[in-house]
């Protein structure tokens, strides 16, 4: 390269540096501005979520925020992006600065990290409530029982069972359906499939054509559904999707062939879009898991343990390892839930404190997380 253009590059690069630096500093500062950086103040509430760009986690955060507001405590949100190692590292960073009377409610992102996360929290003497993920073999009362206050989840088996039953009814007792499964290593995924099988056992007319893994993802579910439609054609009478996102994907695939509404699709979670589709008839049913409630309850219990409102040692197993209630949403009751979506109740610590387990659906049965 000629030395002139070389020198030119040099200068341009020097400019580039300053440019990059400005860019690089400006943006983060903008971000920091929104949330003053301090060591976590006394009584902070910490929640760990899997991703920010998700309706479910946004509502979960909302629930926790309600409690934080009612206590006017600070809410610290940690995002794992489904990476347990990342969650650990970030929690470590927060606990590093010391955290008095802090409380943690988190999804450990996968069964594998539950023990590590609980342990890390216990080391920092921060009470922790876990959601969704818990290996069958460990429980709050047998692992760091002083700090692992509770584990709470939604009953995947029931969810799958409800969906399948609805399909069975819709198909008038016989037909062939296919199921899209979530990330296989997560309990809800195999629980919901288990529920499906349980229901089909009671509904011999309906048979399971095929099962594919959609990793909870809309796009993957869409490709799978499209392939099925091509492969089974009229033999496919219904689609069981393990969550609403994948149900959306399935419906989108059906829409391409104008089959939406004609082939019933079920999902779970009770997301806004799913509710709309239930209303419009594109979806048969979804199962309402209230993330706002889940967020509020889980962080509230953790906080209660932190400030001594409850003593983990005195809690029963049913109180430390329980399902939250969930409901089936179909055309008949969808409006009620759309209303709930639009104006979610604002939870306060005070009212939850009256009975943290008001919305419990009972203890998680042994073997549920196998």
């Amino acid at each position, binding site marked *: 390269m*000629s*030395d*002139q*253009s070389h020198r030119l590059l040099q200068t341009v690069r020097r400019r580039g540096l300053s440019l990059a630096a400005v860019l690089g500093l400006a943006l983060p500062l903008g971000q920091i501005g929104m949330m003053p950086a301090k060591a976590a103040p006394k009584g902070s509430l910490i929640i760990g979520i899997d991703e920010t760009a998700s309706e479910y986690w946004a509502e979960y955060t909302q629930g926790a925020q309600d409690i934080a507001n009612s206590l006017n405590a600070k809410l610290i949100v940690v995002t794992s992006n489904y990476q347990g190692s990342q969650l650990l590292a970030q929690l470590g960073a927060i606990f590093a600065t010391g955290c008095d009377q802090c409380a943690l409610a988190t999804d450990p992102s996968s069964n594998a990290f539950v023990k590590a996360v609980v342990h890390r929290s216990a080391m920092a003497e921060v009470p922790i409530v876990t959601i969704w993920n818990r290996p069958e073999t460990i429980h709050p009362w047998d692992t760091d029982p002083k700090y692992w206050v509770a584990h709470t989840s939604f009953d995947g088996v029931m969810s799958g069972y409800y969906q399948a039953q609805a399909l069975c009814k819709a198909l008038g007792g016989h037909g062939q359906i296919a199921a899209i499964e979530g990330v296989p290593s997560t309990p809800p995924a195999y629980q919901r499939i288990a529920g499906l099988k349980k229901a089909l056992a009671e509904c011999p007319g309906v048979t399971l054509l095929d099962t594919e893994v959609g990793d909870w993802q809309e796009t993957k579910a869409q490709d799978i559904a499209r392939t099925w439609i091509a492969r089974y054609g009229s033999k496919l009478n219904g689609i069981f999707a393990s969550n609403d996102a994948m149900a959306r994907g399935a419906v989108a695939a059906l829409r391409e062939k104008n089959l939406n509404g004609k082939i019933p699709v079920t999902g779970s979670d009770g997301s806004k879009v799913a509710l709309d589709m239930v209303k419009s008839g594109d979806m048969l049913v979804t199962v309402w898991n209230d993330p706002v409630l889940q967020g509020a309850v889980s962080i509230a219990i953790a906080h209660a343990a932190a400030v001594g409102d409850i003593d983990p040692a005195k809690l029963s197993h049913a109180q430390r390892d329980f399902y939250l209630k969930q409901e089936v949403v179909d055309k008949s009751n969808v409006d009620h839930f759309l209303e709930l979506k639009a104006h979610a109740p604002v939870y306060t610590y005070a009212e939850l404190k009256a009975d943290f387990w008001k919305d419990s659906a009972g203890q998680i049965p042994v073997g549920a997380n196998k």
Partner: protein
Amino acid sequence: MTQLLETRGVGKTFGRVTALEQMDLVLSQGEVLGLVGQNGSGKSTLLKIIGGLVQPSSGEMLLHGKPVRLRSQSDATMHGIGMVHQEQSLVPNLTVAENIFLDKPNAAKAHGLYRWNRLFDAAAAQLRKIEIDIDPRATVEDLRFAQRQQVELAKVLAVEDLVSHPPIILFDEPTSVLTPDEIRLLFRQIERLRQTAAIVFVSHRLDEILHISDRAVVMTDGCKVADEPVTALDRESLYRLMVGRQRTIRAPRAVETRPAESLTPRLDVTGLSTGRQVRPATLAVAPGEILGLLGVQSSGAEEFCRALFGAEDDVHGTIRLNGKQISVTSPAAAVQAGIGYLPANRHVEGMLKGRTLVENMALTFGLDYGHRGMIVNRRAERRVASEWITRLRVKTRSADARIDDLSGGNQQKVVLGKWLLSRRLQLLLLDHPTRGLDPGARDDLFAVIRSEAAKGLSVIFIADTIGEVLDLSDRVIVMRDGAMSAEYNLNRGDAPSEEDLVRAMV
């Protein structure tokens, strides 16, 4: 004769280094200017400045009496200045046509849209002009080297049509990689251009300079030390002007010192053939013998050497080193057996770019100076490397300089040093060792090779010129089409004339 180009006090400094000082040069239509000088004498810098590749840091350039600033090569092209590069400057994965017009505008490329057929026609015209028969549609990497060289030439000569005034053509050591026929073609083109253009011709081959140019300019250390018509010069005077010292005449060889037959040959090859060279070759080399190989490009001399070094695919035949049969499946195996190879393309196959001299030299045999040949001993390596750096007269600041910072000649010396610092080297293959070296550096190289041979190292040597072969070898073998066509034992005094050799080659 009208004056085309003039440089007034043109100088160039890289950082704190002056590569060219106060160069005044006049170039007129219809003349061929021979430009000579040692590596690093600044002649290539001068050429680059005229060719637009480098911008002078002082002085000015006048084209037809009007000052010009050439910002890039294509800029120079637009002014009718073309440059034939030592290494080809073609884009391998483009077509011939695209390459010819790479740096030039053409109606067929107007508005950034290609009209392929018109482009091909235009290219065909250019190729026809210099009597070359190559399909302009062909992809360059599919062409034979010779063809590519011709495309390169066509590309440069196409500047003729670009300007109304006579063009200026620069040749930067064009012959160093050409066969006699190709050189003849090149010279024919130069003769043709002579009428209309001004030509600068750079070469290390003094007789070429004397043959083709009207005027010779000699440079040393960035300055012009002579500018005379060639009629006033001869090889010796030119050499003296360049190197600044008398030519070291080859020490008269003691005839019949080592009758090769008397002892087991160092190397004994029978029926060696490669994927490309079907005709098997057979020869033997005695310990301490320097065997010169001569042949035109297709003769298979390089294939033979590279096959010996395990660098050729599907090789057949038997190779015996000191009577013991070896199989050189890879260069590593060859090195293990004690065979070294000085590649012709030192930039790609010889040197580790960005590494220091020591790192380069210690790469292959450094461990021989370590503990039990297993554990690296950097101090020892450094010592040995430094010894060789002085022995080879490598001009460098320190043994820790990056090899890229050295001039071609010194780089070559370092690469040679990599092999010579071995204690167990049996056979050294030199593939065009003097390519791009100035006579001074070449003599240093030859001196060291001779002394090593005297210590018993066997050498096979593919020469750039017949002169070199006669200069260095004990025995000369001429190859044609992969087979030996003639053999002369210089020690026995049967010195062939250049005609004999050339006849045996083609």
